[in-house]
């Protein structure tokens, strides 16, 4: 009773404001009393990140996402976030969204730039690092399988045209075809190699899908590790398919050149007149050689004539 109304009211307001602010920070997983710096990042796809999602460095929570919105000027998603002030976000740092939105575990992972680089000013842009992002396996996997499928189809048709070419009976092409053979050998080798690697990769994917199925029972860390493996594998699968694609591209190139009449083989293939001429030349050559074998004297006479000169 001896306290004045003003004092009571002021105290209540201050305590309430304090509880509010600290509660807000507590549930956002922010340090209660430390100050924070804000930054933003631009990403292609929000991928389930929301305000309140944790911001982590090396897997340790150091801040939270404040706001996620579409930046109409940049045509990208703008993610505003804050981190504890003691974290030095230097030039060369990057941000990426990781985690799997279906289990509500999306985070913004920061990888810090070199420590002696200059600090990115408060409120500045931390560039995003999109390559790392394969979080949404469910979306990516079918696309990859489709791509592999269409590659195989392309390769089959390429191979069949190659073998058609190889079946051309005339032995005189071999020299020219050697390069084709070499290439196709290469392709075969690559394909064999890649098939094994693809198989291994897909095996691992299958294995990991199995692990994912067990996710409900698994601890968060396990899920994390699994997801990272999956990401890694998909990255590898992606690069393998890239190299297959490159080889096939080369093959395609050669065949294209052949088809368009470039190079010896191309000319031969594309000029029937030349083919026939060559053919008849070869026939006559054969006759000539036969004749020489049968009547060497006629030719020796000639040689003699030469001798006379």
């Amino acid at each position, binding site marked *: 009773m001896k306290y004045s*109304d003003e004092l009571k*009211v002021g105290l209540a307001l201050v305590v309430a404001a304090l509880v509010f602010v600290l509660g807000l920070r507590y549930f956002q*997983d922010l340090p209660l009393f430390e100050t924070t710096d804000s930054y933003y990042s631009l990403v292609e796809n929000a991928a389930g990140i929301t305000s309140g999602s944790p911001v982590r460095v090396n897997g340790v929570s150091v801040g939270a996402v404040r706001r996620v919105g579409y930046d109409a000027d940049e045509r990208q998603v703008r993610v505003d976030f804050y981190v504890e002030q003691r974290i030095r976000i230097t030039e060369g740092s990057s941000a990426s969204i990781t985690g799997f939105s279906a289990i509500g575990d999306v985070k913004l992972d920061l990888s810090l730039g070199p420590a002696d680089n200059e600090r990115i000013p408060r409120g500045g842009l931390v560039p995003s690092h999109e390559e790392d992002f394969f979080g949404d396996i469910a979306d990516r996997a079918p696309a990859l399988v489709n791509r592999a499928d269409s590659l195989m189809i392309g390769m089959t048709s390429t191979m069949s045209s190659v073998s058609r070419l190889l079946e051309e009976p005339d032995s005189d092409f071999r020299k020219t075809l050697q390069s084709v053979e070499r290439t196709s050998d290469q392709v075969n080798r690559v394909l064999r190699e890649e098939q094994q690697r693809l198989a291994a990769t897909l095996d691992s994917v299958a294995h990991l899908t199995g692990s994912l199925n067990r996710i409900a029972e698994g601890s968060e860390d396990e899920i994390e590790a699994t997801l990272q493996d999956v990401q890694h594998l998909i990255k590898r699968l992606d690069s393998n398919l890239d190299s297959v694609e490159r080889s096939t591209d080369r093959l395609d190139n050669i065949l294209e050149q052949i088809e368009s009449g470039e190079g010896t083989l191309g000319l031969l293939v594309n000029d029937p007149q030349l083919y026939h001429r060559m053919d008849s030349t070869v026939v006559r050559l054969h006759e000539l050689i036969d004749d020489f074998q049968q009547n060497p004297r006629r030719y020796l006479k000639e040689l003699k004539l030469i001798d006379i000169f």
Partner: protein
Amino acid sequence: MLERHILGPIEALGQYVLLLSKAFRSLGEFGIYQKNLFQQMVRIGIDSIPIVALAGLFSGAVLTVQTAYQLESPFIPQSIIGSIVVPSMVLELGAVVTGFILAGRVGARIAAELGTMRVTEQIDALEAMGLNSIGYLIVPRVMAGILMFPVLYITATGVGIGGGVGVAHYGGFLSAGEFVAGARQFFSPFDPIFGLIKSFVFGFIITSVACYKGYYTGGGAEGVGRSTTEAAVLSCVYILFANLALAVLIL
């Protein structure tokens, strides 16, 4: 018939809006009402803290137990209880429980107080002295409502979450750590801001409706009784409508 059921309410609405506009036009003379403001902030706010904290505590505890009961499944992580209880308290229960309790406690009290002042000519006495009775009586009460309801909301919500964590932890449903982890997982910083907005609005509704009912009381003790009941009931009804309207407009 027409007059009673259509024109009557419209006239009342007009009277209410006019009363409030008169009240806020007198904000300039705040100096005179300042003492009153703090007095009302204590009566409406500080004195309501215990009951509001009690209601919050039990809401949080009951919500936790019932959520745990509903989610009893091996496939759902227990921390989900935290993810449900905290936003429920923050978004809805903290503000609405506070609103309902204070509609009774504060709304009825204000209406009875002003109604009695009206029928015993105390309001006339204020006017006769040259005071603006609307400014003097209504502004401090409505302002105290707007300023103190957020405090009560924070009290109810904070104590409610505390009650939830306590029951979860000591009732053996899930540990405090899991509870908090679950709460953090789906925590959106806008939720408590929305709760605060709600409490501002509820504070305004309860105090302004009660002031309106009390200020225009007529007909002696019976009239005071009628105003008091109407203030409490109407505040509750308007809180329900405002709650829906805010959710639709803001969320």
